[in-house]
């Protein structure tokens, strides 16, 4: 699974996710990626989210929408909301990660696996890429 989230200089956010799904998937199994609100969500009132991992858990927690709701209704930061939802998914037995971009220009990574392929950049000069958790 791959994904991107962004906020442009007009303050609009967008999210995109694309995946081959699960190795050996059967019976027409679909994960969270194409389900709006589960693996992909964007709302200028909150943030943009793209998820990767055990899709069934991201569907059941409506993970992408939940992160946005926590930011919009509780005033949480992107990082706090992402950490909370990944922790909730972990408590249910799921694994994976999310990337988040907020209209204020902040971005966040949160994941409970040993690694997540990830990168980010911004107009303030941040420019990084990483693989492992540490």
């Amino acid at each position, binding site marked *: 699974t791959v994904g991107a989230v962004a906020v442009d200089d*007009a303050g609009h956010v967008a999210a*995109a*996710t*694309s995946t081959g799904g699960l190795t*050996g998937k059967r019976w027409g199994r679909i994960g969270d990626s194409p389900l709006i609100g589960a693996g992909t969500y964007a709302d200028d009132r909150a943030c943009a989210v793209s998820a990767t991992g055990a899709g069934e858990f991201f569907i059941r927690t409506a993970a992408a929408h939940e992160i946005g709701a926590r930011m919009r209704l509780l005033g949480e930061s992107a990082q706090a909301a992402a950490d909370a939802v990944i922790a909730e998914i972990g408590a249910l037995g799921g694994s994976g990660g999310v990337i*988040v971009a907020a209209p204020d220009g902040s971005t966040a990574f949160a994941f409970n696996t040993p690694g997540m392929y990830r*990168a980010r950049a911004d107009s303030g000069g941040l420019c990084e890429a990483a*693989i492992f958790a540490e």
Partner: protein
Amino acid sequence: MAWSIAIHGGAGSMTPATMPEAAQAEHLAALEVARDAGSAILAAGGGALDAVVAAVAVLEDDDKFNAGRGAVFTYHGTTELDAAIMDGATRGAGAVAAATHTRNPVRLARAVMEASPHVLLSGPGADEFSREQGLKQVDPDWFATPERWRQLQELKARKLGWYDVDLKYG
């Protein structure tokens, strides 16, 4: 206003001990190419929607990641691709599930959002819509890689549970 972009290429069980240095360097370089494709659009005043499509399309074309070229195989040795996009300004959204012939599924998801009255199209219908929209079509062999085929055979031979599969190959 500030702009920013974040991308991912999937989460999983990779660790410094299990991933050779050369593979780490290859993956980091690929992530930087995708990130910079999106950053260039934003830095030029472009929109977030164009930036995320540009970044994801780069990752879809790179066979190191599980999307587009390099996607995993289903149990029956086929590729079924899913993608979604959402515009925070309008809450417009487009998604496809089990598409099989569109080179960049993220562009098909965007076409669903911009050129159809629906949000989610699936299977043969999604493929039909893609052809009608004039999106680039490829033979499913374009998506196939030896490494993913090996992973499918390994899974079948070892009869891994789906959860282990997802952590190891997802």
